[in-house]
């Protein structure tokens, strides 16, 4: 799959994003199972999957909108709401769960004042839950974009998030 450009380039107009999507569509349209990579690409360039984009994809692929929506809602990595700059995923896989993953989730929710699936008003954070990121030995684990935070304690949550607020999160 082509490298997707990330959404933080805010100077790109919507029209240009659709043009990029069109190029990608041209290549993937007739491939069996092409819908998923197309949706992944669209999410990468738009940041999320707005209704307009999904309807566009459905028309271009000549697939019913309900089918496209069914695929989007089947996979948890697709989002139909704008996502924050940082996507926090709290692991609730078995290992993390028994070692307090649920408490971590509650602490994050309380800190950000949002629920799972939501984004903070300042568009900085979105919250999702995950099912095992392969770091069970170091449970409980949270993922902020690509950064893995291991052996997290509820009392440490505010500090971890604070670093991202202050712009030094990626260096943690």
């Amino acid at each position, binding site marked *: 799959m082509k490298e997707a450009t990330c959404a933080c380039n805010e100077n790109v107009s919507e029209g240009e994003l659709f043009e990029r999507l069109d190029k990608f569509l041209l290549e993937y349209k007739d491939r069996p199972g092409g819908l998923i990579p197309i949706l992944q690409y669209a999410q990468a360039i738009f940041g999320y999957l707005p209704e307009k984009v999904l*309807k566009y994809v*459905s*028309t271009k692929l000549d*697939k*019913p*909108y*309900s*089918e*496209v*929506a*069914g695929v989007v*809602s*089947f996979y948890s990595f697709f989002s*139909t709401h704008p996502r924050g700059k940082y996507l926090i995923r709290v692991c609730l896989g078995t290992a993390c769960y028994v070692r307090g993953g649920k408490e971590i989730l509650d602490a994050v929710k309380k800190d950000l004042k949002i629920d799972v699936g939501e984004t903070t008003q300042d568009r900085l954070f979105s919250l999702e839950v995950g099912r095992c990121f392969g770091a069970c030995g170091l449970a409980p684990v949270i993922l902020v974009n690509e950064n893995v935070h291991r052996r997290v304690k509820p009392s440490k949550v505010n500090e971890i998030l604070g670093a991202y607020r202050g712009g030094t999160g990626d260096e943690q």
Partner: protein
Amino acid sequence: MPKLTINNMTVEAEEGTTILQAAKKININIPTLCYMQNFEPIGACRVCLVEVEGIRDPVASCSTPIKEGMKVYTNSKMAREARKLVVELLLSEHEGDCQLCDRNEDCELQSLAQEMGIKLIRYQGEKSRRILDESTPALVRDSAKCINCRRCVTVCNLIQGVGSIFPQGRGFKTYIGPAFNGTLDSVTCVQCGQCAAVCPVGAISERDQIDEVWKAIDNPNKFVVVQTAPAIRAALGECFDYEPGTLVTGKMVTALRKIGFDAVFDTNFTADLTIIEEGTELLTRLKKALVEKDKNVALPMLTSCSPGWINYAESFFPQILPNISTCKSPQQMFGAVAKTFYAEKIGRKPEDMVVVSVMPCTAKKYEAQRPEMNSSGYQDVDIVLTTRELGRMIRQAGLDFDQLEDGVMDSPLGQSSGAADIFGNTGGVMEAALRTVYEIVTGKDFPFPKLHVTPIAGLQGVKEASVKIESTVPDWDFLKGVELKVAVVHGLSNVKKLMEKIISGEATYHFIEVMCCPGGCIGGGGQPRLTDDKVRNARISALYREDEGKKLRKSHENPDIKKIYEEFLKKPLGEKSHELLHTHYHAQEKI
């Protein structure tokens, strides 16, 4: 061919046969829910579990192929208990208010529970969230009743090629419905009701309008007339446990009269009228194309009686709208004529009349409330009941259907030719049109044995025929030597394939009959459940029998049709016809 035993009986069947199919061969029934005739099994419901010797867990018989030497037990303790457990679990997640449910006593889940002798639900399952969808005129969906069998998904996506509904989400939170659990009006849905016709439970049903009809009948100031579509007489009996294909025309008329309608009429009458108008329209189009060489004439002409098809064309093939005959459907022609011509005759104002129709179709509920359908100044057809609703209404009226004597339709909108009867099945509208058009053009008798055009009869998806016009009466001499090419198509995914060929120019015809539902109206979304190919064929032969039993079998021979032109309409495609009997179409967004 593998040989196996089922309940110790030996059976041989072809490689690839499933246990379910093999069992059927030796008359062993295994219950099913998600399984659908003519489709790959999806193995979703597990209601069809059986025991296979040597395999620890019971297997789904609908999707397990047979093997040489297999020993299957469909009735062992293990098999019975496994199936019972599956049904118990379904019930535990199900909003089971049977007494209030319109599927009570016509519900596959309920009868399975009864057959299995389930007296107690041992588990308390989490019920899924209720999303009640009343967004369309035709259908009501209730997610709390849905057992996720996905039959509706198969029908909507594969048979109809519309795709309004699809599984949304995953796991326990899977909902079967429109995009993101929205309402049906948020996506394109042609309102055909094929989903409601296959749903085993009360999760998708027609919008019930019985109370509106009682209210009209109870109102002494209203004159309430009823019309019944051709396909009703071949299916209504099934609501009273008659064999599919039993004709109950006479009993139906008596039942309607006893319910209290002021006049009992026939949509067949306006089916005959449609043939006159549509036949004339076809000949006019041909004349413009062949004689006047008018390039703007849209050919092939496509029939317009199926509102599911009209909805489909408006969304999926807007470029083909000029090809569709401008004739209203017989239901709507009836409404327009009843509230003008007939109202005048009986000295009533159209606003004091209520026109009720009984249709095999849920899309007719939608059609009746289209804004164009008010040529009388009022909504021409007020209330549309499906065959199933009429069945319920007859029960509500306390009538013993079996004991009803035969009645005859009232005059002047009740008499019809045999050609009108076959409007209810695929190929019938075309045959009816050919019977009339051929005789108008040639002045000779229609040359087919028993008047049937066999190549366009039957359940094949796309059918074609041609009729050579050897000689003509002087008015139509430009058609001399022309080979009239016609096609017949039903089931929207077949329609899609044919329309693509028409648009690309790969296929050329003069005239095409299009019906939305597989088998035509006899297989409509409002017909008694469950309609499979055997039932379709039985209803079709019933309509052919009804046709063959009539003295008059051609629309133009119907004396009441002649009369309505003399007294009122004057001439086909004339000013009055234009005002009352014709319509136009609008492109719609496809979602």
